[in-house]
Every structure is written in C-alpha cells, then in structure tokens.
C-alpha cells in the first residue's frame, strides 16, 4: 500500500487510489468538477491541479489522474497550484450567466462553492458571453445550457454509466453543447440523476423548480419505497410539502443514483398538486370526524365484534409498503389478540414465492446490488429489471460494462440499457432453461468433487433446453458460465413458478459448491416484502381463504393497514360483494385507495417522509428512514393562511403502527414491550441479533441462517397437467405506472406509458392482428380494451399485460388466466 504525503500529512492508501481521493481521506477536499467517484477520472476540467514536489511526477498535475504512489510529496496549497486553480475558475466563469439569484442550484452548487472559495469575484474578461438555446427535455429536467462548465459529467453519466444514447456532447471548442439530437423527453428512466451529478445548474429538477431555496428546506435521510430495492434518498420538504427527492449515496445499495420513479414519484405524500388527493381527515361512514372519534369508534367496534363472534372474526391486512414497525405491530396484535392474519399479499402465490425466496437466502450467497456490479456472469431469471427494480438494471449494467455476460430468461419483451442474451422462455420453462444452463456449466471434475446432495441435485437438473426458438445456444452460454468466477443469479418472484425461487437458490448454491464465488439476488414485489416474509408463519392464510370466510360470514371485521385489495385482487366483483358483507372495515392509509373510500372507519397514517420508519431490502439490509417533516396539508400554491390556529390542517396522521396499537385497545401489548426495537425483535428473531436496544437500526443485514442440506429435487419435466388452450395472460409491472405510491403521484403523470398488451409478432400475425391495433380481450364478465404492441423479442403463446392505470385488469378473476384466441378481437 503506497504511502504519500499531502500537505505535510502522511497517509497510506490502497493501491490504485487517486491522489484526489487520498487527500479526501485526510479531510483535504481538492476542488474538482469532472471527477466523480462513480464516473472515474477523465482530467477534463483541470480544476484538481496540485503541485507534485517529490516522487515520480513533478510540478502541476491533475490529482484525479494520478494514482497515489510511494514517496510522493504533494502540496495542494502551493502558490502555483492555487493560482492555476484560480485561473481555471476564471476561465469557467467567463461565460457563466451569474444568475445564481434565480438558479435552483444556488446554495448547493459546486461551481458556486468553488468560485467563492477561489476568491474569484470580478469578471475581468472583456469579451462577450457565449449564449445557448435550451432544449425541452421532458417533464422532469429543465435545461439551462448557459450555466454549463463543460465538465462532461452529464454525458458520461448518461451514456457510459446508465447506458442511454440520446444526450451527449455536440459541437466543438467553446461552442460545446450538451443536449439531445432533437428536443424531447429524455429516454432514460434514470434521467433525474443529471440534476445531482451536474456541478452547476444546467439540469434542474422541474417539480421543485422556482419554489424554494436549498437552505430553506427540511432535509433528512430517507429510503425509497417505490420498489423493493430500498435505494437511499434525501427527502426535502418545505411548507409541509415534500419538494424533491435526491439520491443519497449508499455504496452497497444504490451508489450515487436513483431511478426517476423513486425520485419524482413523491407527490402522493402531498396529495398531488392540489393537495386534494390525499385523505387527510379521519372519517366514520364517510363523514369527517376527529381522530379521537375514529380511534374510539374502531376500537369499540372491534371489541364488540370480538366479544360477540370471537377474535378470529377479525382479520388484519398489511402490505409490502408497511414499515417494519407497522408490520411488527400487526404481527404482534394478531398473535396477542387472536385476530386472523396478518395477510401481506392478496396474491397467495406471490406470497409463497417471496417466502421461499427469503427462506433460501443465506449470508454466504446473498449479494448486494454493489456486488452484482462485480459479477462476471449474470443470469436474470423471470425478472424484468427495468420495470420491476429499476436500479438493479443499473447495477447489472456496471457488470456488463466490465464485460460480464448477461443472460435473461424471461417471456417478456425485455429491454435493458446494455447488451444481453435473451431467452424468451414461457414461465413454465424458466426453470428448465436455468437448470440446464447451470448444469451445463458444471464440469466433470467439479461434479466429482461435489457432496452427494449437490451431486444429486445437479444430476436431476434438466440436461437440455429446447433453444430453437431463441436461437441462443445454452451449451455455449454454459461454457461461458463454466469459465466465470463470480456469477450472480437474479431471480424474480412475479411471473415465475412457485418453485423457481428455491431452484434459483439451489443453482447458486451448486455454483458455489463447484468452486465459484456465486451470488443470489431476488427481485421482490415491494418495499417491505422481505420483512413480511420473515414475519409470517408457514401456515398463514391466503387472501382468497379470508375472502371465502367473509363470504361465509365467519369474518366480520377487516383492518386494512396501508393495504388495498381493490388494487391487487383480480376479481373485483367478488371482492366488492364480500366486503359489503362486513360489519366493520377499518382502513388506515395515506393513499386515497378504493378501500379507504369504502371504509366504515378511516384513519390517516403517515408517509415515509412524516415518520421514522424502517424497511428491509431484498438482501436483508435493514434501513432506517428519518422523518423529514411533520406533514399536514401543504400551504403551497397560496401564501400561508394568516389565520392563527392551534392545530395543523391535515396533521392528524400518525404512523400506522401507532394507530393499530391505539385501536387494538390492548394496553397489555406494551406491558412487556418497551421500545419499538424490542417490539420488532420480539416478532422477528433475525432482528434481535442487530441489537434491539439500539433502535433505530440502519444498514445491518438480517439474513437468517440457511437451513442445512436444502437442495430440492428439481422438476425435470415441464409442468404437469393438461396445458390449457390459448394464451397465458401474465400480469406484470411497469415502471412509473404500476406500483402503488407511484400511481397516486401526479408528478409522474407526464411519463405514464400508454396501456398496452404485448404479444409475439407471429402470434399476432396468426391472429390477424397487428401492432397498434386496439383489441378487446374477452374476460368474464366483461372485457378489457387495450392497444396491442407486438414484439419479436418475447415468448410465443403468452400475453403480457402490465397492470396500470387505465386498464381494469381486476376483471380477470384469477391472477393467471388462459385466454382463447377467439377472445382476442380487433376493434
């Protein structure tokens, strides 16, 4: 490890550390513009110049371009270096519009900081300023090119890091321009990072623009709850409104970046632009009441029902957007009070897949997103990363940039910002494909070395996978997998068969036992699906069973804690009928869901920005989100009212766990439980190890010990039973349009994709349909109408229907459906 001296301070750094980073470790912040840890060094801005006094380099050099080496003596304060850096600032500022007073970057502007710190206060350059024309870049990002200092960070991030090709450097010399070929919305669903990465105000966040100065914001570290990955964010609030969300660097999770859904999909917490979209007040029978009245009503009704019908006439629903605190409380109450539940998922199959995924993870094999970046072979089985877990696609891209082979086994028309081999297998074939790929990668010698369980598993894997359709040779890929050292399997839990998550785990384990440093990463369906799986026993009832019991009259009350079966359940008619039979429907939520609208009692809960809460991501990482602001109806849009009141309008919300505890009227719950940490630890043994006394817990991983000898015999034949006729209709997620908080975020409205039904082009041709046709898909009882989108890059025999606003897929009756060809008609 090289030792060097910077400004008279000695430091030893790992080999390959740049001098600029070595200095930072000493607390010396060398000015920079183009250098960014995630993007690497390119030496363009020349701002990081320092003087090298001794060692292999001499004189003024860029500290971002030079690796620390033994014997270097470096001065950042040398007059020549200081003068040069001052000059760079002067050069950069000759064309800058000096519009800080109207610039949203003001107060968080690297250019501003470094200009001020260089002492540059007077523009001496006698020439005119160069000016540019800006482009329209879509609803998220405003473009103000005059502020540009040409550090190339934006184009390097956009093209190299995130893999999109519609923004880049144009022109030459001092006319250099960063923009698009033509005006229009940026194609990248990761475009918001331009705002963070630009060291000045060229790209600013449109939803937040012109509203607030940086120093007036309430800011706290938060966690994104839009998908399961748990990217780290910073929430920014002002006047009771969340104004914007920024990425917060977490080296293991999201790095420096966020996807646009997570960044811009926050407005549900404000109730949209007019604030009217959020249920702010408690209600009984649809009429506004005080929160105390609603609490009293629910708790007395609950005790009544329990007294008359027994506690098992009450069922509690949770969801994958509950905080860990809420989930633990739900779990505790159900146990202590004898209520049914908690039921986390309306789709019992998904629930079982998540459970088996979480059960099969063990700390030796579960990788973080960061570790995916270092994989040399990535198998993505049954997951559409861009749509289901956007930042995971960015992580895989980093592996791809380092020449990793990427194989996607999925029936959907997958698109990802990097090159990959796509095997468009139907759900029932994913296991065969994965299995044969992994089997083919185990060499004879490796097989010999395996223990009997692993050997048996390997032998039972299917040898061949019919790859004629994809035109991809599995044996060839298997050879590459054989040569890899750090393969990672990324496995979905959506469209795959119930046994797939376990098979993926076994495959990863097999790769591991055959000598590779193999990893496993699951794509889960919601921010806290990991913890819901940990909290539920194997015998938990599924939602369909609960529904039957309601229908039979044995369940009389339902508590929906941030859960909306109307969104998730595929048979709305049945649900409708069943729920109207209830004596009591208590809804606790911050979203204006259908369930909230029908509740006999409604209680407003707090969003992630309004409370301290905890979430566990798919690699078992516990992450704490701090309260950003107290919340309440924002006073945006008008001047704050001058009426003096002793309460905050819309300030009734409280964390769902607190509401639950209050309505349970279960004083005894807290008798043996003192703190939230202890509550969670009591419900979730894995949490205990993280030190319950130290609530909040942040960044600890709670992956349970893997049960030994868990190789499961893989299915060698395609799924048994009569294959139904027609097309298998698969419900999927789509970025911006499917996930729960996002559909209530009007900030995303501008980017909602048009609803579409995807079909293989040959299937469509055979049915006499073509791309862009509006088709009617006949379901019982009605039908849905949707635009057809055909693709060659997907499996035949399936229909892909992204669940999104504008499509009433809840008419399907079942989560998976087989649609006969005749029932798809062009209209």
């Amino acid at each position, binding site marked *: 490890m090289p030792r060097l001296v910077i400004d008279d301070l000695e430091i030893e750094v790992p080999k390959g550390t740049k001098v600029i980073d070595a200095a930072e470790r000493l607390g010396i912040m060398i000015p920079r513009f183009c250098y960014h840890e995630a993007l690497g060094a390119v030496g363009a801005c020349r701002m990081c110049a320092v003087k090298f006094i001794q060692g292999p380099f001499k004189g003024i050099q860029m500290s971002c371009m030079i690796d620390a080496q033994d014997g270097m003596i470096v001065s950042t304060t040398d007059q020549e270096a200081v003068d040069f850096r001052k000059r760079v600032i002067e050069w950069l500022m000759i064309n800058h519009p000096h519009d800080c007073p109207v610039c949203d970057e003001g107060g968080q502007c690297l250019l501003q900081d470094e200009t001020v710190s260089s002492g540059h206060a007077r523009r001496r350059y006698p020439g005119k300023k160069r000016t540019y024309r800006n482009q329209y870049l879509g609803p998220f990002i405003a473009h103000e090119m005059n502020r540009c200092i040409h550090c190339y960070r934006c184009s390097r991030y956009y093209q190299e890091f995130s893999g999109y*090709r519609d923004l880049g450097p144009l022109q030459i010399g001092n006319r250099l*321009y960063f923009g698009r070929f033509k005006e229009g919305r940026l194609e990248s669903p990761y475009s918001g990072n331009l705002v963070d990465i630009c060291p000045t105000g060229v790209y600013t966040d449109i939803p937040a623009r012109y509203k607030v100065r940086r120093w007036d914001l309430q800011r706290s570290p938060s966690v994104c709850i839009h998908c399961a990955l748990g990217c780290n964010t910073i929430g920014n609030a002002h006047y009771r409104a969340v104004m914007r969300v920024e990425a917060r660097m977490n080296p293991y999770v999201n790095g420096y970046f966020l996807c646009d859904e997570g960044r811009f999909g926050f407005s549900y917490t404000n109730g949209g632009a007019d604030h009217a979209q959020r249920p702010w007040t408690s209600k009984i029978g649809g009429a506004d009441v005080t929160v105390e009245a609603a609490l009293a009503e629910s708790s007395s009704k609950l005790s009544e029902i329990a007294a008359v019908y027994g506690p098992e006439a009450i069922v509690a629903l949770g969801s994958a957007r509950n905080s860990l605190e809420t989930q633990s409380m739900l779990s505790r109450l159900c146990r202590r009070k004898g209520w049914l539940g908690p039921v986390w998922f309306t789709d019992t199959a998904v629930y079982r897949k998540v459970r088996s995924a979480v059960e099969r993870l063990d700390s030796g094999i579960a990788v973080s997103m960061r570790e995916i970046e270092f994989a040399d072979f990535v198998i993505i089985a049954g997951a559409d990363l861009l749509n289901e877990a956007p930042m995971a696609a960015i992580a895989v891209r980093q592996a791809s940039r380092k020449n990793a082979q990427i194989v996607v086994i999925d029936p959907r028309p997958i698109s990802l910002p990097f090159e990959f081999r796509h095997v468009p297998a139907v759900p029932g074939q994913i296991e065969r494909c994965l299995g044969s790929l992994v089997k083919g990668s185990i060499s004879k010698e490796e097989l010999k070395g395996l223990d009997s369980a692993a050997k048996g598993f390997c032998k039972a894997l299917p040898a061949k996978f019919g790859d004629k359709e994809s035109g991809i040779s599995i044996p060839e890929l298997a050879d590459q997998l054989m040569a890899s050292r750090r393969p990672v399997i990324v496995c979905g839990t959506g469209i795959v068969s119930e046994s797939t998550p376990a098979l993926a785990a076994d495959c990863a384990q097999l790769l591991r036992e055959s000598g590779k440093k193999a990893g496993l990463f699951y794509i889960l369906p919601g921010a806290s699906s990991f913890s819901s799986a940990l909290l539920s026993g194997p015998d938990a009832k599924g939602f369909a069973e609960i529904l039957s019991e309601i229908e039979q009259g044995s369940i009389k009350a339902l508590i929906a804690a941030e859960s909306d079966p109307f969104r998730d359940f595929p048979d709305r008619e049945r649900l409708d009928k069943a729920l109207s039979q209830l004596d009591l429907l208590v809804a606790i939520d911050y979203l204006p869901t259908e369930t909230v609208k029908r509740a006999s009692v409604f209680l407003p809960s707090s969003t992630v920005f309004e409370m301290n809460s905890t979430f566990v991501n798919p690699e078992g990482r516990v992450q704490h989100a701090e309260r950003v602001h107290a919340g309440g109806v924002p006073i945006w849009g008008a001047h704050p009212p001058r009426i003096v009141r002793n309460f905050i309008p819309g300030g009734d919300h409280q964390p769902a766990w607190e509401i639950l505890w209050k309505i349970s009227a279960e004083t005894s719950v807290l008798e043996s439980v003192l703190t939230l940490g202890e509550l969670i630890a009591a419900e979730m043994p894995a949490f205990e190890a993280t030190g319950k006394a130290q609530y909040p817990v942040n960044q600890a991983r709670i992956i349970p010990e893997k049960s030994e000898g868990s190789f499961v015999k893989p299915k060698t034949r395609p799924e048994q039973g009569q294959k139904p006729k027609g097309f298998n209709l698969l419900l999927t997620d789509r970025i911006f349009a499917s996930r729960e908080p996002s559909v209530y975020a009007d900030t995303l409205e501008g980017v909602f994709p048009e609803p579409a039904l995807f079909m293989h082009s040959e299937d469509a041709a055979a049915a006499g349909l073509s791309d862009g046709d509006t088709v009617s898909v006949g379901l019982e009882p009605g039908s849905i109408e949707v635009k057809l989108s055909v693709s060659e890059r997907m499996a035949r025999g399936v229909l892909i229907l992204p669940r999104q606003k504008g499509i009433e897929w809840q008419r399907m009756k079942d989560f998976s459906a087989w649609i006969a060809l005749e029932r798809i008609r062009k209209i």
Partner: protein
Amino acid sequence: MLSEELKQKLRTMIADAESPREKAVDVMLEIQERHLWMSDEAMEEASDLLGMSPLELDELATFYDFIYRSPVGNYVIHVCDSAMCWLEGHQRVMDYISIRANVPIGGTSPDGLFTLLPVCCIGYCDRAPAMVINRRVYGKLTPEKIDRILDKLAGENEFHPPE
C-alpha cells in the same frame, strides 16, 4: 429520403469496416455528395444504417467542419483564413466572392448556388490565398481567377442540377 440505391451503397461501405461507426464520416460525406447537407431526416436514416443513435451521429456531425447540419448551396466555398492566406489577403477574397456571387459571408446565395464560409488552414499555404470548393482546392486566387472558377461552376450547374 435516402434512395434505396444510396442506402445499399452505404450498407456495403459499412459492411467493410471493423465496426460500423468507423464509416460514420464516409457515410455523411457520401450523403452530402447527393443531398448537399445532413438534414435531420438524413441524420436519422444514416444513424440507423450505422447502428448509432441520431445523437451519437450528431456528436460527430457537429464536430467536423466539412459536415453540414444546415442547408448549403450546391457549392460550398471554404476560404482559408489561417496564417498564410490571411497574410495574402483572405479577407479580400471573401469580400470579392461575396459581392461577385451575391453570397453573404457565412450564408448562401439566393439562387442556392453558393455558400461562403471561412475555413482553417487547408494545407495549400504555398498557394495562398486558397479555397476549397466541394473537395477541390483552388490556390493563388486573384479576382480574375475567382471569376473564372465561379463562372465555370455556375455553368456546370446548369447541366447537372443537384438531386
């Protein structure tokens, strides 16, 4: 907008290369040969052939001097304004052409025949002042010589209207 025949020619060119992008400039020069300049549609079609995004191709198109991203005349007159030509009176040449061919400096004549632009040293310093018109170079320019060149080009053009 590109004819199928031209596209086929371009495809053949591209197929020869180590990687398609290598032929980006050649493709653009070839298109300009027929269509004079790279319109947005031409950029889109060319980038498609090259397997690049239009922006990626534009990154190159806007970098280079001899790729035109706005309409130009049938003849693009680049008058060298670097050291030797400057010394030998490039400004006089510019002015003369401007008046003679009724073409504004940096613009195109109303008849669409000529565009007049300055250019960096074209490597004919021994024959300053010099200019290059559609890949042909003319040196030791005098008013008489310029007259002859412009007349000839205007004459040629009557028989070969551009596509």
